[in-house]
């Protein structure tokens, strides 16, 4: 039994493949069509991933609130459950039981689809996240490109939320987030390019393998790492770039008119996006699940939560940027530096 557990932790690819082969043999013996079995496998993976997402999102919300409490001389949630761990669960149950208000004269299609349009992209990106050395849902060989393409979709959700809720504050919030997302995709892409050039492939698995033995890209590409963190922070609409839902200016930005279930989906999507950006940052720059002693899955979570702490730290320290400065910062500072870094690393690779 210990042997199976040890194999499952350190090299999960092998036992899972064995299990799948046994199941397929059993299935074929009965003479049933094999594509149905593939479908069952995919559904199983999807179920585990969605279960993981909800639990993880609840944990990150609690983690964010505990970090902010740590920095603000207070205790953070400690009433519901041990150390307040069940606090987010209690909040979710409360949100589910609240009345789902649909304001007058909303654009119903845009208003109802918006939460889904924001949540589905962050759900879909989990396909290529390398949790462990075998634990990857579908190791597409265009991994990074897939991530960037899909994460660009959530802008549509926020825009339709802004337009659908027939509220001036939401409209301004929605339009701000469109401008912000678009203008921060470009530096993010340019920050990823050196990594792709170094590994020669866009497959996430290949990128993580290329960083084996402490060849972390964060050391080789420190500038790209910082730019990716800043642009990722902006993609996720978190301070100091939280203009779309700026509490002090736009009341609650694009999710002003949302209540109960829809609002909890927005909230879930925001924190899942935060986890995704940190997971990608960890995999691309900090060596994903590469690590000496501990099993790969634990390394992956350690590094991801380290990046989440960095983003939370920035959130609770900095004031908010104004809209025109947001644009200026991206096009005048991030972009030139990212391009320069790209050229320098290309030249360096050519010479070395």
């Amino acid at each position, binding site marked *: 039994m210990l042997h199976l557990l040890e194999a499952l932790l350190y090299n999960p690819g092998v036992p899972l493949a064995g299990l799948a082969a046994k199941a397929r043999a059993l299935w074929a013996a009965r003479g049933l069509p094999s594509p149905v079995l593939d479908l069952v496998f995919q559904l199983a993976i999807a179920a585990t991933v969605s279960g993981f997402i909800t639990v993880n999102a609840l944990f990150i919300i609690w983690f964010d609130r505990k970090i902010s409490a740590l920095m603000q001389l207070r205790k953070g949630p400690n009433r519901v459950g041990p150390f307040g761990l069940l606090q987010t669960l209690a909040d979710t149950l409360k949100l589910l039981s609240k009345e789902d208000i649909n304001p007058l004269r909303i654009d119903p299609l845009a208003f109802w689809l918006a939460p889904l349009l924001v949540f589905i992209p962050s759900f879909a990106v989990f396909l290529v996240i390398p949790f462990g050395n075998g634990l990857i849902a579908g190791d597409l060989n265009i991994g990074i490109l897939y991530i960037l393409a899909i994460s660009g979709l959530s802008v549509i959700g926020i825009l339709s939320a802004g337009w659908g809720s027939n509220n001036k504050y939401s409209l*301004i919030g929605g339009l701000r987030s469109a401008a912000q997302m678009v203008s921060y995709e470009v530096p993010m892409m340019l920050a990823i390019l050196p990594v792709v050039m170094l590994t020669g492939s866009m497959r996430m698995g290949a990128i993580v393998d290329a960083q084996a033995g402490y060849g972390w890209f964060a050391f080789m590409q420190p500038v790209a790492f910082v730019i990716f963190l800043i642009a990722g922070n902006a993609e996720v609409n978190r301070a100091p770039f939280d203009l779309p839902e700026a*509490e002090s200016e736009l009341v609650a930005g694009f999710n002003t008119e949302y209540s109960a279930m829809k609002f909890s989906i927005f909230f879930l999507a925001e924190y899942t996006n935060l986890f995704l950006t940190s997971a990608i940052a960890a995999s691309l720059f900090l060596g994903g699940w590469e690590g000496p002693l501990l099993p790969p899955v634990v390394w992956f979570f350690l590094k991801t939560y380290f990046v989440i702490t960095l983003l939370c730290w920035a959130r609770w320290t900095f004031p908010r940027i104004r809209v025109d400065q947001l644009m200026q910062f991206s096009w005048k500072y991030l972009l030139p530096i990212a391009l320069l870094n790209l050229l320098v690393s290309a030249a360096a690779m050519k010479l070395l």
Partner: protein
Amino acid sequence: MPVQAPFELEKLSNKEYILNMGPQHPSTHGVLRVVLKLEGELVKDVFPDVGYIHSGVEKLCENRTYPAIVPYLDRLDYLGAVNLEWAYVLAVEKLCGIQVPERAEYIRVILAELNRIMSHLLWYSAFGMDVGALTPIFYAFREREEIIALMEAATGGRLTHNALRIGGFRSDLPKDFLPGLGRFLSSFERKVDEYEALLIDNVILKARTKGVGALDPELAVSYGVTGPSLRGSGPAWDLRRTAPYSVYGKLDFRVPTSEGRDTWSRLKVRMDEMRESAKILRQAAGALPSGEVSAKTPRVLKPAPGEAYSRVESPRGEFGAWVVSDGSERPYRVKFRSPSFSNLSVLREIAVGCNIADIIAIMGSLDLVIPEIDR
């Protein structure tokens, strides 16, 4: 029907729209409605609409006895309550010709300056939240809680102190007040530097506030702007120095000003003012004479017919109380000149042309307290 802004009645071009900021809005610091004519995010016109929390204090005071009015003053500006009480009490003492003993004067200075620091600390944290930084409020409130504990020990109230009486004080400072004050002052300046590093010198905040809401001095004086908002544009007019009342003439302190005229310089002036208040507190605590804390006043106060106006430098500017007496035990007419009233009226001159985020920063830098405007 709420008041219609003048530009609401005109025809709007298709790019412009009207946005109601308030009366229920997270960063109007109270019940204030600002109607904005916007084009995209650019502000074309501003119309502040006040009066949502008007409680007719001046009519109330006309049928209260003179000493019973003091608690109403705390409700006008609950952040700088002692200063406001001081303005009214000074006016009544001028009317009745009461001479307040020296010790009471120094205790009034101590409580007023503690109140000023309390008010600036709350302004600092509210401004941080308006600009999006959610952490400064917790640090500033740690200091503010220490001051509140001191004030509660001395006066009994945390915000609405009701400390002053006509003629001095009802009872002297408690035993552990001065040591507590000393402990607080010993580490206060270091904390102010820390606050400045966290927010005021932050490059994002500087980008948000430099050159925003420029207020030129002549316009400010013509609009009756007073206090740190005026001193951010140059003139060093502080009533504690230009028209010294009580014992401020004997205390030596600098009036911080800045030539920047924009939102950031108003922030800097308030941070320096906190340091100056700490300096005043040290001197006043050191020079505190012993003796009586209250002059002899008749049980039922009936001042001779006449009128008196007295000014006080409240944390927001010049707060004045104009008291008219007709010889009875109730004032004939009372007028409170509140600083936020005039400070808000200048918003239209400095806020046109900026965008929504700047309006919030500018209103934050004017440090408005709404009950003081509506009275």
